[in-house]
């Protein structure tokens, strides 16, 4: 298997606050990797560094062995809710990445249409984001990221703003979509069961500063169904990840409680 995305020795401080220390991990081609960590593990900074909108003090991010110098269409991003442009229709949102990179043509339009169909939103082209539900907005978000045909799909807690039922449906949908093209995916979440359900491997981060605590291989069969979440095997994985971050989570809650209001 070839390495698609490599994060090497990333270090970053803001003034005296060290947020990332020697972060190392990789994502193989066609692999689905989840990153899990308590708040304060530096995942926002990590994500911004991978996106190329934040510069690391040390270390590199590489795709196919090339070090990245800035943002580019080789990475497609799915953000938390509300990052769709409210003044653009669903269709205009989906083609946004193509448009700004000057790649909007008959062929890419066809591809964008295909992705819109894949996420189940054909016929909603002319709607505005405010007219559709939160779950549908995240599907558009996904189609927008896929439309630029990126090497790596990076998803930042994409389902965190959704209600529990919608979230489960979206997880299944994401797996269904992923199964079609097997894009390389880096999925950031703070929900352990979500990470176990979706990923081939889980990168567990520790906090203050952020560092890689452990990488866990998830050996659950694919295609995965919701019933899997009730198996003992699944529970064991969740337990294992939880044990790794429990102390950190308590520490972060304590810290929040002590923070001056």
């Amino acid at each position, binding site marked *: 298997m070839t390495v698609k995305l490599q994060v090497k020795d990333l270090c970053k401080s803001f003034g005296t606050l060290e947020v990332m220390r020697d972060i190392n991990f990789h994502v193989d081609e066609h692999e689905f990797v989840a990153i899990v960590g308590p708040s304060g593990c530096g995942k926002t900074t990590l994500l*911004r560094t991978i*996106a*190329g*909108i934040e510069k690391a003090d040390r270390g590199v991010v590489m795709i196919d062995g090339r070090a990245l110098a*800035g*943002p*580019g*269409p080789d*990475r497609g*991003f799915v*953000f*938390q809710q*509300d*990052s769709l*442009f*409210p*003044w*653009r229709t669903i269709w205009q949102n989906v083609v*946004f*990445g193509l448009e*700004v*990179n000057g790649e909007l043509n008959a062929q890419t339009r066809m591809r964008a249409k295909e992705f819109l169909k894949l996420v189940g939103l054909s016929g909603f082209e002319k*709607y*505005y*984001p*405010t*007219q559709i539900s939160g779950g549908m907005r995240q599907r558009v978000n996904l189609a927008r990221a896929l439309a*630029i045909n990126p090497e790596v799909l990076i998803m930042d807690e994409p389902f965190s703003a959704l209600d529990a039922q919608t979230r489960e449906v979206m997880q299944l949908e994401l797996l269904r979509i992923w199964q079609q093209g097997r894009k390389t995916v880096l999925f950031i979440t703070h929900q352990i069961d979500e990470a176990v359900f979706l990923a081939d491997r889980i990168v567990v981060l520790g906090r203050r500063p952020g560092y890689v605590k452990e990488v866990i291989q998830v050996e659950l069969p694919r295609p995965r169904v919701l019933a899997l979440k009730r198996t003992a095997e699944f529970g064991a994985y969740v337990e294992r990840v939880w044990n790794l971050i429990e102390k950190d989570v308590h520490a972060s809650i304590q810290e929040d409680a002590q923070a001056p209001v």
Partner: protein
Amino acid sequence: MAENVVVTRLKKSSAAWKGALFWTSAASIVGGLLLWELVGRFVVKKVLFLTTPTQIVVEIVRLARNGELQQHILVSAAEFSIGVVFAIFLGIGVGFAMASNKFAKRALGPWVAAFYATPTIAISPLIILWAGIDIWSKVIVVVINSIFPMIINTEAGLRSTDRQLIDAARCFGCSRLQIFWKVSLPSAVPFVFAGIKLAIGRGLVAVVVAELFGSRAGLGFLLAQASDAFNMPLLFVAVTILAVTGMTLTWLVGMLERLLMPWRTAVDQES
């Protein structure tokens, strides 16, 4: 003979609901005018104290016949529209400069804040003294009264662009220029429109007040003439025209808003 009576509840989006809303405002206007007319005819009979709507209409027709009315309207309209259009474009330009350049912000900020809070209408006599009694002095008064809400709103709109949207655009590889055109500008449009509404309101007041201070024609001139002669029907003519103009302009801006910000209307329809 049994009659079939179908009772349907009005849905908020239905045509019947919209019709009911329309007839409510129509009834309110007609009722108000009728009440005014009746009070003027049977309670306060002196024209000096209360001119009735019919008397105003008669006066409007008389003035329109001899061409006097059109002339005054034309003068005021020219002063107002030149001034407001100028204020809108210059205001957007200055607001943009202040939002995108820290030095421009520091240099212009204190002046804008000071002038916005000052009732600049008070210096209109001075402007008339400087620029003369013809239309250009009024244009200037309109500009200095209308431009500050434009500047402040444009700047606030460009600045308040959602951080997340800017980050999203950057992740997709947008250049700074693209972020301005495709993210900051569209997200500032609602603010700019709010500014335009304020500018129009202030501009209308500015035209009339400036004309009151010194002019040879215009609706403000008509007002001054009417009040000097205690010609109340004439006074009401000017006031009526100003009120109708204000309403029409607000309605026009509303139309333009729906045209340029369809995503906003989409929200309205939902709620």
